[in-house]
């Protein structure tokens, strides 16, 4: 069992951990001005929406990002609508997965 790439895993940990840990471990975070907290409160909706949008609208092919239009858009919108309407994320997820699976099985996605 070759394990030479475990060193690379440790190197990647060293590249990842600081961005995960710095704000959490920084002393005096609670003494930041109120506008900073107002800003941080909005980070959640902004970055989650960015993750969702980039995931369904941008596809990287041959190292080049391209705009993608597909059934996944509708699936994600259906999930959003059902989650807001029913106040239940699971219902939205099941509908999104089902819609995508069926449309792919039918060859329309």
């Amino acid at each position, binding site marked *: 069992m070759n394990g030479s790439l*475990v060193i690379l895993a440790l190197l990647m940990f060293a590249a990842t951990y600081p961005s995960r840990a710095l704000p959490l471990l920084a002393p005096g975070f609670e003494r930041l001005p109120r506008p900073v907290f107002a800003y941080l409160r909005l*980070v959640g909706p*902004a970055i*989650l929406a960015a993750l969702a949008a980039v995931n369904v609208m941008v596809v990287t092919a041959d190292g080049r*990002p391209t705009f993608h239009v597909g059934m996944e858009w509708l699936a994600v919108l259906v999930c959003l609508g059902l989650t807001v309407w029913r106040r239940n994320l699971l219902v939205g997820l099941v509908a999104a997965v089902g819609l995508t*699976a069926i449309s792919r099985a039918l060859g329309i996605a």
Partner: protein
Amino acid sequence: MSAQRAGFSPLEAIAFSTIVFAGAAQFAAVGYVAGGVAWPVIFLLTALLNARHLLYSAALAPWLRDVPIGRRAVIAHLLTDEAFALTIAHFARAGRTDERGYWLAAIGSTFIPWNLATIVGVLAGQEIPGPERFGLDVVFPAAMIGLAAGLIADRRDVVAAATGAAVGVLVSLALSPSVGIVAGGLLGPLAGLALPSPAGPPPAELGTVRSAEGFSMPGTHYEQGDDGAGEAPR
């Protein structure tokens, strides 16, 4: 499965999932290793790809400031897209910090399944059909947008989310998805803050019943603690 195809040994694949524990970076690393990219370059690309965690950590820091530093150090290692999304939505809905909720989100719903899936992929990857066939690839974006919707409390949140999504896509197309997501996460809140404060009483302090009620589901009731802090919903 990707690691197996790229020639990773089972030990190496499992080490990546436990030590790095960052899905997008792991998938990228598989391609880099297969393409013979130099390790220092992989280090830099990994730091860029995972820069968004800085925003997650900053957004969670106010909630977790009373957690002992040793536990915060472990919390940091387990911080992923999914753990952040589930936790920030849970904290906002409860109106208070629930450290146990973080561990459940980070370990129960992410770390253990991710590592189990790695082992299954390494051992039986060739027997498993592509998850796209079952539509499972939309679970991630659908869950992210659903959890974002749960965080929407006023129009500032709406503008931050819409701007974050638009900026994220545009910058992704111009540069790369990893830069786009960070740009969306940075600029979306600025657009939200550009709006005047919502009319009505000032926002409630985090951790109070009034703050919790702003995010609560219909029919959820909160008990007032002695110090004014909200108790778990009943």
